[in-house]
């Protein structure tokens, strides 16, 4: 490698490192903040090095969620709720959309294109537009403030259906016909051929949908009331005091750090699947 190339390489790395620093800094501040007491942060004189109260803050957040001045729910319970919600939404969305895409692509039934377009059209309506009617429906079904009310309305997914449809369209007709001659019926073909071939797509979708579910804010805020159903995202906002009340920023920072961990772990873990899927592509 020439000196010129080496220099350009160095510049590129400098830019990348700067980018990483800019993105990582707020997270670092949160991490440091979670190790000091509320008063230090409140005075605005928090040092940029970790303080002495790390373990205490995290234990407090995990077990009670409350600081000196606010009463919160224990982070442990909220993390569990968020995890359950994100998993049900992710798996529910994948399940529903892979089945509907299978129907739309491989079966000839009256109104096939109509149904496909109906699914497609819902893509164009943002959640906020249909949230009031959805709320009404869920309340009428008696699902207000229940886990199913929290998750089921978020499961239908036009995007995932579209993604699976595009993938299914690339599967050659001959493969379907070979399976027909081999004697595999529709259900057998789905489980023996379609599902294994979709593995990489499912892994990619799972990451996206898990984070989507984890970050839900508006819907949980509307549909849940009791502390037992509180998700971590809602919990954090409720911890921030309004008006005169002081805010226990140290506890909030600790909670935030813990709230970040599961999505990060999902990405880290699934990334290995991505790479595997890309390296030994089955198609």
């Amino acid at each position, binding site marked *: 490698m020439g000196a010129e190339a080496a220099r350009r390489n160095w510049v590129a790395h400098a830019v990348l490192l700067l980018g990483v620093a800019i993105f990582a800094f707020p997270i670092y501040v949160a991490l440091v903040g979670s190790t000091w007491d509320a008063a230090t942060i409140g005075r605005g004189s928090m040092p940029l090095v970790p303080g002495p109260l790390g373990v205490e803050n995290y234990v407090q957040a995990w077990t009670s969620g409350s600081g000196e001045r606010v009463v919160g729910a224990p982070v442990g319970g909220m993390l569990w709720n968020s995890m359950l919600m994100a998993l049900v939404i992710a798996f529910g969305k994948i399940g529903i959309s892979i089945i509907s895409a299978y129907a739309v692509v491989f079966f000839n039934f009256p109104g096939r294109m109509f149904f496909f377009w109906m699914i497609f059209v819902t893509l164009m309506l943002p959640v906020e537009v249909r949230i009031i009617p959805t709320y009404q429906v869920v309340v009428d079904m008696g699902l207000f403030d229940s886990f199913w009310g929290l998750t089921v309305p978020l499961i239908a997914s036009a995007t995932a259906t579209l993604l699976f449809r595009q993938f299914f369209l690339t599967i*050659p007709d*001959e*493969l379907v*016909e*070979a399976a027909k*001659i081999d004697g595999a019926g529709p259900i*057998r073909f789905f489980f*023996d051929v379609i599902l294994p*071939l979709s593995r990489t797509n499912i892994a990619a979708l799972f990451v996206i949908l898990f984070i989507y579910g984890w970050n839900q804010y508006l819907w949980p805020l509307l549909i849940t009331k009791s502390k037992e159903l509180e998700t971590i995202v809602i919990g954090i906002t409720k911890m921030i005091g309004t008006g005169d009340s002081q805010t226990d920023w140290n506890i909030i920072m600790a909670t935030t750090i813990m709230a970040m961990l599961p999505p990060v772990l999902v990405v880290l873990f699934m990334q290995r699947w991505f790479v595997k899927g890309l390296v030994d592509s089955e198609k």
Partner: protein
Amino acid sequence: MAQVELRAIKKSFGDVAVIHGVDCPIADGEFVVILGPSGCGKSTLLRIVAGLETQSSGDVVIGGKVVNTVEPKDRNIAMVFQNYALYPHMSVRENMAYGLKVRGLPKPEIEAAVARAAKILELEKLLDRRPRQLSGGQRQRVAMGRAIVRNPEVFLFDEPLSNLDAKLRVQMRIELKQLHSQLKTTSIYVTHDQVEAMTLADRLIVMNGGRAEHIGAPLDVYARPATTFVAGFIGAPAMNLVPGTLVAGGVAIDGTKLGVAHPAKTVTGADVTVGFRPETLHLDPAGPVALLVTLVGALGADTLVHGRMGGPQGPTITARLPGVVKVREGERMVLRVAPEDIHLFDRATGRRID
């Protein structure tokens, strides 16, 4: 093993008729090749036999049973596709075993069947590989293996060698032929390659525009093509087909008169298409055919001479002369063709006149 019979098969897609009534009995153990240009309906016909398409009318009979409404899996057939259609996520072994597994055969029986097929096709060392780790020829062998393990009554091949390179195609063709003489399973094979068709077939079905124009043994089709289409399609370089008129004792082409072996029943003066193969023309200074040479292609073993018959405005014909012939463009040469090598076709219908 079974006989297959196609009875008046017709097929339309909407208003478009693609097959206009094909009749053909196929004997037990026979290797029948359906040959034709793309769009002639040959693949559709095969898919109808497989049950992947339903004919608009007519019957498909396999082993004495009308199977019009029988599902593909219950027709006791196996099909080999042009693009192999192997399950990409399964190993070679699983690919071959899948059909038997779906049918719920006991495991030892499946293993034995796979082992037997792998031995015939020399796939034993590849059994644990995935399709993407195989070459085109190996994939095609796996596709055949998948067909063999089922021990079907009929093999259906849909242009199975078209995706292979020329050298491999020749090799696989030989293997296919050997496989058939070993297994003696009734086979229907679709191709647009006439060399494949001529070498593999016990019997040829030449299709054009949804009709079976000629059904017969390959050499009979070559020697006595039933229509001008068949005459032009079988044989390379293609048969010379020129317009002519019947005269007493022969046929007149633009001033050239050729003798004809079978005196035609049609009246003198009728418009006909005259056909003679390039390889039936021979150099003869006393011959009736004068050729103005326009292009010479020396192949080594043969020389292809293209030229105009009679004069500069005459019909274009090709002669295939053995060995190296020293002739240049613009020169004239004189050729003869034996009366028994002349084919006559009705110019209006394209049908052969005997």
